[in-house]
Structure formats: structure tokens, C-alpha cells
């Protein structure tokens, strides 16, 4: 948490000043060639762009504290914060989907490997782990699209939902909003769209969860309380999933914190591959249009997101592990 704040400040400062020394007049770009000098001057004053850079910088910092990230150039003065908030739910939905896939797959394979420790199965699972985190996201995505959308025709090719099912915005998460508005067909449709992107993103993150869970599990399975559980005749399923699995939660949580940056980065590629209108795709588009205030806002938002998530993970340690007290 504390370590990402300097990062956000550092990024903000660099991007802020690079933005200001870039050639070209942003205000002129916003109002277009036909606008009069008077209009340009007024807009410049309105946006505070006539002030010295250092004053603009502190204005920006002050705005940041109020959740104000400035206004977009490309979208003619729209607040960057609301533009980001429009795209963020899509990224969140994908991130949740990807996390579920990677945790499920990672934990199940890890249990399989740890239970058969040292066998061919164990080594095959380890190999799968290495290959899974070496996969190039767009390639994996395209292969899945080819198989499930083009050839088998059982899942949609891309985008978040078919146009006719777009739910009224409540949370912005289409899967959740469809349920909340009682639209079952919409829910199924949104879920179908979510499957391939989630597998793509999830598979790439599986390897790390797999490795950490397997190693912890191997260690835990050799401990006395497991022998005790087996000795008293517990079903093997209960030994593995209840007694042993609980002890892998803390390393797993640590890994989730470490993986979060990878998850966000992977989401940028996944969103582009599946035309998923989230923050990553938005960032790439805004770079193409050279909308610097929006780019700056998105980067800062990513930084804050990392900070918030690492704080949540710290709190969860205390909830899961009775030894941790703050």
C-alpha cells in the first residue's frame, strides 16, 4: 500500500511535465481549427492552462484528492474520472472471471499434484504450470476463439454482451446487472461472453497459484495433524479439502496480491483480443488519439487500484490468520 503511493506520485509528476512540454496546443485541438482566438483564450482560462506549470501541478494534486482527474481532450472536456468509471466495471468483471478460473484450476491441479507427489502426474502438472505462464495471451485467446466460436460455434467470438441484452446500468458489471434487473437471457448471454476471456486471462495466471499451493500442500500433508486426521478415519476428500487446503490460504492470498499487477497487465491484452471495452483497451485507444490528460488519469487510476488491492489483502490476512493482529 505505502509503496505504491510514491509510484503514483512519481508517475504523475513525470507524465504531467512530459505532457506540458509536448508540442501542439491541446486547447486548439479541443475546440477545432475554426474557433476564434477569444474562444481558445476563454477555454484555456477555464481549464487553468494559463497558469504557471507548477501551479497547475498542485491544482492537479488537489484535484486528485477530490477524485478529480482533469478533463479529456479527445472527448471535448468530459471529466476523465467519469470516463474511467464507465470503463472500469468491464475490467473488473474480466478480472473477477480470470481470478476465479485461475484459482479453481490452480488449486485443483495443485491438490492433484501434491497428493501424487513425485509421480508422473506431479511432474506433468509442474510442466503445465510453466507452459501456462509462458502463454502469450492474444495467441491463446485467438486459439480459443477459433475452437469455440468459429468451429464449434458454442460461445460468442468477442465483446461483452449482445446489443439487445445490454442491461440498465446499476453496477456496470453486465453479469450482475442482468440478475438484478431479472433478465435471465441477458445473464446467460453476458456469462457466455465472459467465459473465453476469463479462461484466457485465468490460464496465464494459473501457474503461480499452482506452484505455491502445491508446495505448501506437500509440506502440510507431511505434518502430524494430517496423520492424525487420517488415523481417525476421515475420508481422504475431507483431509485434502478441509484440513490441508485451509493451510494454503495464506500463501495463496500473498500470491494473489503479487499477481494483481500481472492480472491488470494481462487484462489489457485480453481486452484487446476480445474487443472487451475495458480500461486497458481505452488506454490503448487514448494513446492513439494522444489524449494526454486521459492517459495520465488512467495510469494514476491503475496505480491507485494496485494500492487499494494490497490494502485489502493486508486486511484479509488479519481475517484469515488468527495470529495476525493490527
Amino acid at each position, binding site marked *: 500500500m505505502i509503496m505504491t*503511493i*510514491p509510484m503514483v506520485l512519481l508517475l504523475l509528476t513525470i507524465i504531467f511535465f512530459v505532457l506540458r512540454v509536448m508540442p501542439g496546443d491541446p486547447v486548439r485541438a479541443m475546440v477545432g481549427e475554426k474557433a476564434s482566438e477569444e474562444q481558445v483564450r476563454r477555454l484555456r482560462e477555464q481549464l487553468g492552462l494559463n497558469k504557471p506549470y507548477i501551479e497547475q501541478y498542485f491544482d492537479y494534486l488537489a484535484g486528485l484528492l477530490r477524485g478529480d482527474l482533469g478533463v479529456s481532450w479527445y472527448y471535448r472536456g468530459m471529466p476523465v474520472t467519469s470516463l474511467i468509471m464507465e470503463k472500469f466495471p468491464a475490467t473488473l468483471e474480466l478480472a473477477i472471471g480470470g481470478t476465479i478460473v485461475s484459482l479453481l484450476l490452480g488449486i485443483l491441479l495443485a491438490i492433484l499434484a501434491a497428493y501424487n507427489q513425485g509421480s508422473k502426474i506431479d511432474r506433468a502438472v509442474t510442466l503445465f504450470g*510453466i*507452459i501456462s505462464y509462458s502463454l502469450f495471451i492474444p*495467441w491463446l485467446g*485467438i486459439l480459443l476463439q477459433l475452437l469455440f466460436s468459429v468451429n464449434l460455434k458454442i460461445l460468442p467470438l468477442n465483446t461483452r454482451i449482445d446489443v439487445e441484452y445490454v442491461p440498465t446500468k446499476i453496477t456496470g458489471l453486465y453479469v450482475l446487472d442482468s440478475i438484478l434487473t431479472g433478465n435471465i437471457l441477458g445473464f446467460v448471454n453476458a456469462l457466455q461472453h465472459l467465459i473465453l476471456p476469463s479462461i484466457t486471462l485465468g490460464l496465464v495466471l494459473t501457474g503461480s497459484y499452482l506452484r505455491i499451493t502445491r508446495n505448501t500442500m506437500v509440506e502440510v500433508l507431511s505434518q502430524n495433524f494430517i496423520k492424525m486426521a487420517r488415523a481417525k478415519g476421515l475420508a481422504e476428500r475431507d483431509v485434502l479439502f478441509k484440513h490441508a487446503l485451509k493451510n494454503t490460504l495464506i500463501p495463496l492470498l500473498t500470491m494473489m496480491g503479487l499477481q494483481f499487477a500481472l492480472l491488470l497487465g494481462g487484462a489489457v491484452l485480453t481486452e484487446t483480443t476480445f474487443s472487451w471495452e475495458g480500461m486497458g483497451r481505452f488506454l490503448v485507444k487514448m494513446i492513439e488519439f494522444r489524449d494526454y490528460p486521459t*492517459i495520465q488519469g488512467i*495510469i494514476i487510476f491503475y*496505480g491507485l487500484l494496485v494500492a487499494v488491492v494490497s490494502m485489502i489483502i493486508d486486511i484479509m490476512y488479519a481475517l484469515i490468520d488468527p495470529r495476525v493482529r493490527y
Partner: protein
Amino acid sequence: MSMISSKIGSLLKFGSSAYMLLIGVSIIITIVVLSIIAPFICPYSPTQRVGPAFSPPSSTFILGTNSIGHDVFSRLLHGGRTVLYVAIISTLMSMSIGIPLGMISGYIGGWPDRFLAVIMDAIYSFPGIILAIAIAAMLGPGNIFNIAIAIAVTYIPTYYRMVRGQVLSIKSTPMVEAAIAIGAPVRVILLEYIFPYVVPVIVVIFSMNIADAILTEAGLSYLGFGVTPPTPDWGYDLRSGQPYIVNAWWISTFPGLMITIAVVGFSMLAESLNELLSPKLRG
């Protein structure tokens, strides 16, 4: 004789470290050699229209042609040159900044060390590819050197953290304390007493770094922040074939396969080196 062969047999057990090392190194050597000799073995020029667009794999074009009529196979071999070139340059950049910084910071200690550690941790915790996108966009994409810088920045903290950690643990050993006591200059302590213990760490990170650099380079080119077309590049070729996957699957499939094979090769090398060189580093 049978003892030796059974020993080799157990060393090369499926999935063991030695087995992975062997496969990893074979993959790497194959890709490096193919990239070096690409101009001599390619049937066609990678940047010229050599046939009809969208011809499927055949005896004339073994991996087919793309939407412009370039030979996919020739672009694949030349693309390896671009990818490896960027990956190696960026890795060397990260190393030449991360390693000295980590050693000096860890050895000096005090506030400069804490200050640097905070900055490095901050960069480390930020999503690598997003940072690389931002840097590439600021420096101006298209230039191979700029792409290498963008990738290099994201990996400096990894060297810094691992090297610094290793220095901190060796600094307090009697060996180094003795060297300080006899008045050895700092340069000698760092290079002759501490550095040899840092090398195994660097070797492992190096191979991991190349694997990650290949993925980041491919990601940047895929998103349009990579080399300028028509320079052959796996990430860019994958992207340019994506609109046609339904009718011309070969354009995107092969470059993506190459990226994955190359990364698997370096990941396997890193993984097996990690197990063989420094069992304590695992986890």
C-alpha cells in the same frame, strides 16, 4: 555401463530439472540459430509481396501468405531476429542498471538504500506491461531502442531487489567483516567478496527476464506500440492476422506459436537453473 545409463535415465526423468534444462536449452539454441541464419535459409523476402494474399499453407508457401502476400514462414524466421534483439538489449539494460544499484544500495545501507528501495518497490508493484506502454508512448513507438528502454525499466526492480537481498545477507558474514577489518577497499569487497555470491541469482533472473521481455515485446507490438511495419515481428504479425482468423487461421497462429515456444524455452531454463543452482531461492 548400465550404472551410467541408469544414472542418466534418472537425471532425465520426465519433468525433472535436468530434463527441463535440456529441453529449454534445445529450444533456445534452435530459435537463436534459426534467427541468425534466417537470411540464408528463407525462401522469400519477409517484407516484399511474393505471392497472392491469403494463400493457405502449400508446397510453395509452407506456412501460407498473409493479407498482403508476404510469406508467413520467411516473416516468422526474421521476426525472431527482431524479438530476440529487443529482448536481449532490454535485458542487458535492466542488468546494467539493476545489478550495480542493488549491490551499492545493499552495501551502503542507510537512507539512500531505503529511498531507493521504496522507489524500486513502487515500480515493481505497478503492472509491467502498462508501465511499458506508457513509457513507449512517451518516448515514441516504432523505434526498437525506445521499445527496449520501455521493457528494460519494468525489469530493473527485479534485479535490484534480488541482488540487494543477497548482498544484505552476505554483508554480515565473518568473511566480509574480515575483509573490512583488513582494510580492503569497497570496490574489492563488492567485486571479489560479494559479487561471486550474487552471480547465481543473476543467472536465474536473466533467463526469467528474457522470457518476460519476449512476452512484453510481443504485447507491445500486438497493441501497436512496437516496431514499424513492415518490419517482421511476431506480436505485430499476430495482430495483423487477427481480423482474418476465420478464413486464414495460419497468419496469426504461427507467430503466436513461436512466441509461446520461445518463452517456454527460457522459462524452462530459468526454472531448472533455479532448482539446480540455488535451491534456497525457490518459492
